């Protein structure tokens, strides 16, 4: 051991940078969460982590930096996320690799492991999900495995935290010991060719950080980077014919014309050998696993899709039914809170700012937290159980007709929660065209922030027992519109060949209560944080714009009118007229009036127009703006003091329908637009998206408005 040498340089010695690598869905992010106190997003499908994430923690004398990399089946650079991993492993600076392996599927996982072993990096293998393996009667001899492949193998379980300390100790020990050569043995014919190339490199004393053996393997595999490196070397002239000859021999031996396929077979037989040596599995009868039993129902050719639709219907039914129970209490709380706070403020303007601006605006958004929580629980279950991939399987045929990829389903469903992670998760799509197409229609999947607007309007115009169905209807029609939009885009803007669909179907898992709780809590806190900061700020701005400039002449003329009249009812009515008139001549009123002609064909008054324009910043602002606008002016009487009441009283039904249609289609929010632009790769796509969604929203709303007018 050369620990003495290492300690001579304390800053570097005490810092270990670990790259966490593994196939998709083996629990890498969950392992990090168990090791540190991070709360990385965890789900049960391939493609949860799409970008590298760094997590820092301390253990004993060491500072650890763990880089969570997207899962990759092999070094094939098939999708963007896989490219992220491959590029990081090849080009970045790190000390050690932890290769996370699913113990219940060892042979398959070793495929990546054997490729990692040719990288000349220090590797530690984490045999994850060992608790699950034990349950399935699988026993891996970790010590023997470590001996066979020459790297430490530690049994761990991210779920039960078993073996985590041993894993970290093994990483520290490996870090302190010098690099040794992993043992990866190929078939005799390949070994012969490798030996030949190694001999040649050795003869010419070729200078390289990588071992000759690894260089030889990479050359034979056709690794582009290795080729590029050697291509400019003088020995290339002599090396090339040897290499061609060697490749021919291997291809001949494997009866194939594809050297990559030959090597895949080599790796596979090595992995098969290792698995056969170290794996002991209790002989199980040829009975169906639980996953297969569940699958025979959930992906049934006939019932699969109806079952999925039922689940979705149930989710929105629950979202409305249960979500509405605490709504009255929250509403009452904010009214009480506003009055109590208001009573302590002497200054009229400040009181109005706080009560009618901030509290009314934020209150209107917080009102919908229960609905949001239920929606998030539904999405967390969908992601955590493994059902998501099944739906992708069921819908691929249908999606394909509209020019979409079955795997587009994953970003699209994520879009029901929030468009931002949805845009990111579109990276699981290989083809840029498919990805762009999916990016364009993610907005059609109504995000959680739009839910408040829908709940508000559904509650305002429909009986409570119908509102859940209406909610479901809005989401489904949004999704269907999205499909139509996809088809339109596919035959116009994104023409081209279809990409293949090959996707892993993970085992069903029951996500732990803790996991669901964390996911939902994190998302809900983000919603609340937004309500407390961004929405509060926007509400203040809206309040200011709707209160200024003051027109003292207008106020005076009304005040004299109010004073002169004796009729109490008239006094109240005049008071309302005054606030209405004040609102109309405010800055916001001016903006609204200015843009009103544009929205008149859709049946919107200026308040709705303003709310929609404010909604470009974030959809919650639509609700808070309506909250401020209707709290300030207008003839809201005692019975309909709530916003819902004000809306059903002030907005005609056809206009409301058109309003919902616009909300469904137009741009999600400012933050999502920024992420969209980044993921799409060019600012021009943002302008395309803006134009596309605006025109579509306008046309569809116009149709919806006129059809409803005819029907009602």
């Amino acid at each position, binding site marked *: 051991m050369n620990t003495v040498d290492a300690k001579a340089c304390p800053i570097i010695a005490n810092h270990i940078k670990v790259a966490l690598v593994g196939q998709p869905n083996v629990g890498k992010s969950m392992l990090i969460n168990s090791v540190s106190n991070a709360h990385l997003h965890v789900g049960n499908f391939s493609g949860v982590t799409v970008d590298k994430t760094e997590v820092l923690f301390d253990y004993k004398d060491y500072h650890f930096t763990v880089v969570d990399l997207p899962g990759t089946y092999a070094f094939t650079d098939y999708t963007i996320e896989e490219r992220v991993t491959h590029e990081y492993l090849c080009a970045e600076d790190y000390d050690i690799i932890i290769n996370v392996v699913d113990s219940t599927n060892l042979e398959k996982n070793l495929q990546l492991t054997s490729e990692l072993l040719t990288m000349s990096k220090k590797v530690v293998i984490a045999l994850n999900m060992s608790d699950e393996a034990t349950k399935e009667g699988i026993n891996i001899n970790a010590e023997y495995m470590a001996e066979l492949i020459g790297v430490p193998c530690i049994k761990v379980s991210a779920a039960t935290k078993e073996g985590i300390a041993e894993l970290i100790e093994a990483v520290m020990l490996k870090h302190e010991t010098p690099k040794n050569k992993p043992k990866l043995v190929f078939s005799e014919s390949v070994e012969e060719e490798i030996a030949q190339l190694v001999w040649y490199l050795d003869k010419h004393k070729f200078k390289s950080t990588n071992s000759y053996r690894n260089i030889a393997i990479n050359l034979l595999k056709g690794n582009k980077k290795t080729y590029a490196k050697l291509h400019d070397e003088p020995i290339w002239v002599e090396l090339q014919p040897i290499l061609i000859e060697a490749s021919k021999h291997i291809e001949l031996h494997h009866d194939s014309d594809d050297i990559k396929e030959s090597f895949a077979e080599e790796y596979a037989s090595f992995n098969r050998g290792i698995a056969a040596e170290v794996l002991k599995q209790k002989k199980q009868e040829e009975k169906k696993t639980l996953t297969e039993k569940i699958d025979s129902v959930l992906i049934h*050719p006939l019932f699969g899709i109806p079952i999925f639709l039922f689940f979705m219907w149930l989710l929105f039914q629950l979202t409305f039914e249960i979500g509405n129970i605490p709504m009255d209490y929250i509403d009452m709380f904010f009214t009480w809170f506003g009055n109590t706070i208001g009573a302590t403020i002497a200054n009229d303007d400040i009181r109005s700012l706080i009560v009618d601006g901030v509290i009314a605006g934020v209150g209107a958004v917080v009102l919908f937290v229960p609905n949001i929580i239920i929606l998030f629980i539904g999405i967390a279950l969908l992601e955590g159980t493994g059902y998501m991939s099944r739906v992708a399987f069921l819908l691929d045929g249908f999606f394909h007709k509209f020019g979409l990829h079955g795997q587009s389903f994953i970003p699209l469903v994520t879009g029901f929660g929030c468009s931002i992670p949805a845009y990111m998760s579109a990276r699981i799509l290989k083809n840029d065209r498919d990805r762009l197409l999916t990016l364009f229609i993610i907005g059609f999947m109504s995000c959680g922030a739009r839910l408040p607007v829908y709940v508000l309007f559904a509650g305002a115009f429909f009986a409570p027992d119908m509102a859940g169905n209406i909610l479901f209807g809005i989401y489904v029609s949004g999704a269907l519109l999205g499909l139509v939009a996809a088809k339109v885009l596919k035959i116009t803007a994104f023409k081209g060949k279809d990409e293949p669909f090959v996707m892993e*179907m993970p085992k069903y898992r029951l996500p732990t209560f803790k996991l669901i709780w964390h996911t939902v809590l994190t998302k809900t806190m983000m919603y609340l944080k937004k309500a407390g900061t961004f929405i509060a700020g926007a509400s203040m701005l809206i309040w200011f714009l709707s209160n200024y400039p003051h027109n003292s002449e207008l106020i005076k003329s009304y005040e004299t009118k109010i004073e002169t009249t004796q009729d109490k009812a008239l006094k109240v009515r005049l008071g309302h007229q005054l606030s209405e008139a004040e609102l109309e001549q405010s800055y916001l009123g001016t903006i609204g009036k200015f843009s009103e002609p544009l929205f008149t064909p859709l049946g919107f008054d200026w308040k709705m127009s303003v709310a929609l324009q404010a909604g470009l910043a974030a959809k919650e602002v639509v609700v808070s703006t309506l909250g401020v606008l209707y709290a300030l002016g207008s003839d809201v009487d005692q019975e309909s003091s709530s916003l819902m009441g004000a809306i059903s009283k002030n907005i005609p039904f056809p206009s409301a329908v058109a309003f919902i249609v616009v909300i469904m289609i137009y741009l999600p929010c400012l933050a999502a637009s920024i992420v969209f632009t980044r993921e799409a790769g060019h600012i021009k796509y943002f302008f395309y998206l803006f134009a596309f969604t605006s025109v579509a929203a306008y046309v569809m709303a116009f149709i919806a408005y006129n059809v409803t007018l005819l029907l009602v």
Partner: protein
Amino acid sequence: MKTLLDCHKACKVKILKLNTSGDLKQRLISFGIMKGAEVEVLEHAPAKSTIEIKVGKMRIALRGEEAKLIDVEKI
């Protein structure tokens, strides 16, 4: 020649050849769908648009069009 698409549900077959090249071939191989691998057909989506197969312990969904490119023999 029989292809994976022709197989019935619960049918067990051995892969003879992948009639494809480039990215798709690499992708299939990285999922363990390669010459000599044993495969079981688990489920068909309506109209065989998508099929679910089992390779080793892994369940994989692929499109009918891709399944058509895989030559198999019954075992």
